[in-house]
């Protein structure tokens, strides 16, 4: 059906302008308010109780973020998140092709299997297999953490890339094949470029899930694999609010930047937001 964009300037539900502006301000304030103390604490030297503004500001938070331990944890977090994103995209590309392009028996079961790990948080599941990680020497290793983080990211990547494959016009591939290109050459020179926007989005979002993951890293990493969320959790437990806030900012910045980068592409795609609400 040839869709035409809706009629210009239809405004139906508009409430009086002043009320609307007020509610908008309230919404913005409610969304941003919890972030205010985080920002202020990260630079607060001393902030005695009744004061609304700190008595003294400090750059201790910044120093702490540049400290050796934090830098090492950042490197570990990056290493794990990049590895997880690359593996999840590779596995997801393969599975996505099956989901997006084929109709086969048991497709619904596969969809269920691929959806469940995205929705069910990992704790309940990981408790059961932790002993196996210990037994096979994967506990307390970066490899073990990468493997366990594939559980929430691979199904997510498969779902997103499955949707991308479903929108792919396979006639491009057929055209390439009739021009003499072999299957791998076709995949690399035609399919991957066509799926590139979805691949970039998937890579960024799986990176983000891994970057924010806490409990799986704790259970499998056993405190030996120290990522930023683990340091942050410890800092929140301590009484050093400045340190916690500074670390919190370090943890929160990459995800926010990534989402701002991909937001335009994701508009109108609720399935893509699904994984984000998990973090």
């Amino acid at each position, binding site marked *: 059906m040839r869709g035409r*964009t*809706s009629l210009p300037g*239809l*405004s*139906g*539900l508009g409430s009086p302008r002043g009320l*609307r502006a007020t509610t*908008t301000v309230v*919404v913005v304030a*409610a969304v941003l308010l*919890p*972030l*205010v*103390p*985080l920002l*202020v604490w990260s630079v607060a030297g001393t902030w005695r109780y009744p004061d*609304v503004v700190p008595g003294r500001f400090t750059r201790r938070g910044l120093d702490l973020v540049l400290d050796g331990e934090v830098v090492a944890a950042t490197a570990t977090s990056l290493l794990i998140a990049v590895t997880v994103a690359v593996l999840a995209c*590779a*596995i*997801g590309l*393969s*599975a996505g092709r*099956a989901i997006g392009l084929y109709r*086969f028996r048991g497709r619904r079961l*596969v969809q269920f*299997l691929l*959806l469940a*790990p995205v*929705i*069910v*948080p990992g*704790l*309940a*599941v*990981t*408790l*059961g*297999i932790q002993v*196996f990680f210990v*037994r096979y020497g994967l506990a307390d290793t970066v490899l073990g953490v990468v493997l366990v983080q594939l*559980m929430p990211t*691979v199904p997510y990547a498969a779902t997103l890339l499955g949707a991308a494959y479903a929108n792919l016009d396979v006639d491009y591939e057929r055209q390439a094949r009739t021009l*003499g290109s*072999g299957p791998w050459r076709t995949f690399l020179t035609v399919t991957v470029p066509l799926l590139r926007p979805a691949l970039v989005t998937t890579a960024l979002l799986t990176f983000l899930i891994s*970057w924010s993951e*806490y409990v799986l890293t704790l259970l499998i990493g056993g405190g030996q694999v120290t990522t930023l969320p683990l340091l*942050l*959790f410890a800092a*929140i437990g301590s009484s050093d609010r400045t340190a*916690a*806030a500074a670390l*919190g900012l370090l*943890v*929160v910045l990459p995800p*926010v930047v990534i*989402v*701002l980068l991909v937001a335009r592409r994701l508009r*109108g795609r*609720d399935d893509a937001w699904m994984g984000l*609400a998990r973090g």
Partner: protein
Amino acid sequence: MSQSVVPTGPTTRQHAVRRGVPERLRPLLLLSPALVVVGVFFVGGVAQAVLQSLGRQPFLGETDWSVEAYRATFADPAFRASLTLTLRVVVLSTGLATVLGVAVALLVRRHARGPLTTLLQSTLAVPHLVGALCIGLLLSPSGFVSRLGAGAGLVDGPQDFWVLTNDAFGWGIIAEYTWKEAPFVAVVALAAMTPHVRDLEAAARVLGAGRWRRLTTVTLPLIAPPVAAASVLVASFAAASYEVPRLLGQSFPATLPVVALQRYQDTDLLVRPQAMAVATIIAVLSLTLVAAYLTLVSRLSRRSL
């Protein structure tokens, strides 16, 4: 390359590939890496949790089948308190996030849609761990709200402020889930309010439906399926996530995921089957919600045909 000159070349090659892997098995082959990951870690994890809750102890050679762990768990008043707390947190967080999310979406679609949508989307990216930190700094007895209250002369001191974090009711946990998940529901609802929905509202309008009637008979029924699906996700997450209740709740009663980990980390290995029983209960709860989600989504897609 010579094949591009011979017209039959590519076809021959295609047949060769088909002969290598039968067409029927291709999806299975393509899916296998993902299925291995999900099968080993997820299905294996759930199965192991169930088996270990029933008395099996891998690598210790002991398998003493019994439902003792479940009996002990359900008999424990602490567990029942946890279950009550968990359900309360799930119901209140989901309800608040859904109502507020839809309300915000209805507001945002008319007014400053671009910037406000971006704001909501960036809140989505905040990890729950950081969200818990923020809510703690905001609502604790010496937190930002308490300071604002003191500044306005409404609060005498930290001890005078309401206990909103690490409290028995779970307000801090509910606040964090609501703050993080209402934008999620709003983003889903906004995605559902397509130009087509707007056109249907215009059609209702020329048929004589006023603002309220349009909202209740056109807009809300049309966005209900995806919004309901989003709510199910929120509920499932609130039921099974660990770090937020661990940081913003009490250690007793704690929500089920916290109890599961507490028992898992108990030095007494005999408590471990109970940890697995709790983990199984959480998994069953979440998977029930996943099934509800899938039902909703399939109903939605049938409608859009």
